[in-house]
């Protein structure tokens, strides 16, 4: 069951990713990237990490995708085809991929992973509020600063 699901999701996700890399119009590429994001979320669900999967949909489909789409819309004057193959991008992609494969192949796989309790939202919350409370506060401060900065950038100047 889970093997079949894995294959279906993997095909779905790879199709999205390939489309995102090859589509001539940028908006189409961005929308195909969303398919890949949803595929990643589906993987998290398949692996039993519900919370991470939900956050993946929330953040990437709900926010990052909208951000990308708007960035394309507001910065590109020409919405025409961007043709031509980007060799630099391909080299970087192959380099990253091969180093990842190298790292995975050289990782010593210990025998069976220890059995852990299912990761519930409650446990994540507890850990975030106890062990990792300072990193959490720092992220909160950073985001607040970013929000205020954005507001100052767009605020009308008072006469």
């Amino acid at each position: 069951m889970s093997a079949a699901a894995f294959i279906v999701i993997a095909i779905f996700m790879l199709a999205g990713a390939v489309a995102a890399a090859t589509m001539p119009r940028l908006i189409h590429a961005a929308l195909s990237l969303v398919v890949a994001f949803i595929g990643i979320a589906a993987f998290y669900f398949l692996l039993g990490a519900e919370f991470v999967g939900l956050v993946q949909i929330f953040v990437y489909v709900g926010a990052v995708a909208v951000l990308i789409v708007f960035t394309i819309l507001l910065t590109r004057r020409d919405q025409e085809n961007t043709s031509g193959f980007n060799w630099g991008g391909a080299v970087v992609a192959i380099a990253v991929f091969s180093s990842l494969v190298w790292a995975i192949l050289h990782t010593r796989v210990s025998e069976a992973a220890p059995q852990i309790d299912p990761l519930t939202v409650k446990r994540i919350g507890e850990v975030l509020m106890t062990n990792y409370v300072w990193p959490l506060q720092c992220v909160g401060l950073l985001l607040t600063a970013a929000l205020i900065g954005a507001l100052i950038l767009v605020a009308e100047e008072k006469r």
Partner: protein
Amino acid sequence: MPGEFVDQIFVAAKRWILSLLSHAPDWIVQIASALLNIILLLTFFATLFALLSVLERKILGRIQNRYGPNRVGPFGLLQPLADGIKLLIKEDVVPIRADKVVHFLAPIMMLLPAILALGVIPYGRNMTAFSIDGGILFFFAVGSAAELAVFMAGWGSNNKFSMLGAMRAIAQMISYELPLLIVVLPVVMIVGSLSADAIVAAQEGYKWGIVPRWFVFTPWGAAAFILFFVAGLVESNRTPFDVPEGESEIVAGHMTEYSGFKYATFFMAEYFGMFAVSGLAVTLFLGGWHTPIAWLEFVPSYLWFFAKLAVLLFVFIWIRGTLPRTRIDQVMSFAWKFMLPMAFTCIIAAAVWHYQAHGWAGWLSSFAVVAVVYFALSRFLDTRRKFATRTYRFAE
């Protein structure tokens, strides 16, 4: 016990159907179970959508002192059937410069999150289609995908009105998603769970034997419920917040270039969104499927859920019939200047209530927190201009 049997009749029916498959492998049973849930949800809510569309026109007619649809079938009840056939056989016009694929996918992408969101709502005792640990989070996660669908509709149509409408829709949906999420937080914090079933379970029983323990009967809960309802109105693009499709300014917003059944799909998505938001409001604040009065326990739980849902849907229609459309700048400043601070106040008020053992003192101090912030905000945000006394000059 007959009451319990009627209450669990759908659960029992599903179990019986699945028992026919007892010899099949595990994964077939799983898929069959999921399919049963999906089919039931879809048929039920599609029927409810058809009924509500005619009911809405009837109620609006009543409000505006006219009849509303009354030709097709008894009391015009078969009107949705006629509308459906009309929309199906209508010509599907796609603009020549439109992005065909995106234009085609947008209505589907619009309907999909609304249907998915319906899955996590508990409709009755043991009647949650998709019961997961982070149900409430799931609801908002899939709901956030609707913004992308609106963008696809606006951009794919290649029309300035569509794009303007989509921009407005996305702006207001993003702005109101914040208060919508934050007013859910106090409930989640008090219950200590993101699962819809746990939230309903926490609202069981009666205080002093009469008042149900629904969160709407606490000061923070009442404030959060009203905020949630207003934000829900915006999220489903209903009047008075239907600026994205403001007919008087931008034709029909992101739906301008849609005709025939694609337009109907948008319409359906709007209604399904309404069902989802009202259903979640019932779950979070109105006690889900719990009975309001103790001696009416024999009435099946799902009937209570749908009774509450019907009341909320009626309020949606009522508001549409009575309030004029707001301006886009008013909508936006209302979100950031009023809704957001009030939403944060709800969290503090809930904390005050919680740490005074849910008693009288907590009720009063929680009420005080909400009231103080409300009046301070309304003083602070009062931008009413002071006009000089008007003097009239008439021709002599």
